[in-house]
């Protein structure tokens, strides 16, 4: 008795690829063309299957139960007097189910025929030790005349003896600037720009040097209390006058 039960219900629920797959297996047990299948009979088979599974305390995934509920609804719709307002009609639902089963069945059979074909590496074989085809890449080097002469220039510049000369620059020393600003500021009563303390003949780099040295000299002299500095804002002209003015 026990043996009988387990024979008819050798169901490995993991083996089913979902409720539609189970339905298809049951439908194929009717041994008729899927187009001629009895949906009512299929619903009964599925529900019976579910009940037996439950009796065996098999845990069924939720989608199997959802399908069972839906099929029970479909069955009642097909059996009870028709409600013309209802859309989609139970017949329509049954037809859709049948169409889905047909399509799944078609693909199942196609898959079986596909994997049964003479497959490469299983039934038919490629040559195991081909000599191989070789592509010999021949380099065609590209370079422009400019690259060539620029390269030579680069080498020459790199390897030519180079003489480093530190150019003697004309500068005003800080001592010179302190002496000069201190001497000139004594005679200025009004505010005068720092540039007016530079020698008239100063240009270029010497002028820059003189300006820088005179500025430091002015700071030093202000610290010593010998002159006053004024600037309205950063980068505005810098004014100097004697401390006694």
């Amino acid at each position: 008795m026990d043996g009988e039960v387990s024979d008819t219900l050798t169901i490995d629920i993991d083996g089913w690829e979902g409720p539609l797959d189970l339905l298809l297996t049951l439908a194929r047990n009717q041994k008729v063309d899927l187009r001629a299948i009895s949906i009512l009979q299929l619903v009964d088979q599925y529900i019976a299957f579910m009940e037996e599974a439950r009796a065996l305390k098999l845990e069924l995934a939720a989608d199997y139960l959802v399908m069972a509920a839906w099929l029970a609804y479909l069955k009642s719709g097909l059996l009870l007097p028709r409600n013309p307002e209802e859309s989609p009609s139970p017949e329509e639902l049954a037809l859709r189910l049948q169409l889905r089963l047909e399509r799944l069945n078609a693909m199942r059979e196609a898959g079986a025929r596909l994997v049964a074909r003479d497959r490469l590496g299983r039934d038919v074989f490629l040559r195991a030790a081909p000599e191989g085809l070789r592509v010999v890449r021949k380099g065609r080097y590209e370079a422009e005349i400019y690259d060539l002469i620029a390269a030579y220039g680069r080498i020459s510049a790199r390897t030519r003896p180079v003489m480093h000369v530190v150019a003697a620059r004309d500068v005003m020393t800080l001592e010179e600037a302190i002496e000069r600003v201190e001497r000139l500021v004594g005679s200025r009563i009004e505010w005068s720009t720092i540039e007016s303390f530079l020698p008239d003949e100063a240009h270029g780099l010497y002028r820059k040097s003189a300006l820088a040295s005179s500025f430091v000299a002015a700071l030093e002299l202000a610290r010593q209390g010998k002159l006053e500095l004024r600037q309205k804002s950063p980068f505005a002209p810098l004014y100097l006058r004697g401390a006694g003015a």
Partner: protein
Amino acid sequence: MIIQDDLARAVEAVLFASEQPLSVDEIRAHVGAEADVSAALRSLEDIYAGRGIELVRRGDKYHFQTAADLAHLLRRDREESRKLSRAGIETLAIIAYHEPVTRAEIEAIRGVQISKGTIDVLMEAGWVRPAGRREVPGRPLTYATTPGFLTHFGLASRRDLPGIDDLKAAGLLDPVDLAFETLGNDGDGDGENETASDSE
């Protein structure tokens, strides 16, 4: 005629030495730009017909392989390195017969979600590739088969898929909605008339 024979010899040697199936253009790169490679291939097909080695075409590529009926002599280890699961086989069939097809469409046909690895396994085997996105909301990726699929399953082209013409003619490659409209409209028509006559 001797020239033709020489070319057939050359094509034979190139295909024989190649590690991969070769297209006509690839063969021509070896045997000469002017060569009528297609004619040479046809003559080789004749020469090899019925022999232990056959010249076959897979997609646009050609290769030599052993004759299928000799499989029993050559199958040293029968163990299949990767046995495809049922889900894998069905998914491959759906992609091959419906391509390009989205994951949602595969799931609609199978009535179940595809587990994560199923398409990966098919792609890893070199049989399936992503084939662009469908221009509908969500722009889902579509899948199609590869030249390697044709080679592995011994198909000259997708038209050689077993039973594809019959399936197409029976509308079994059309989505349910489309099939339903075709069928259902007739059904509705009948139903309507019945209802009408009932109410009269």
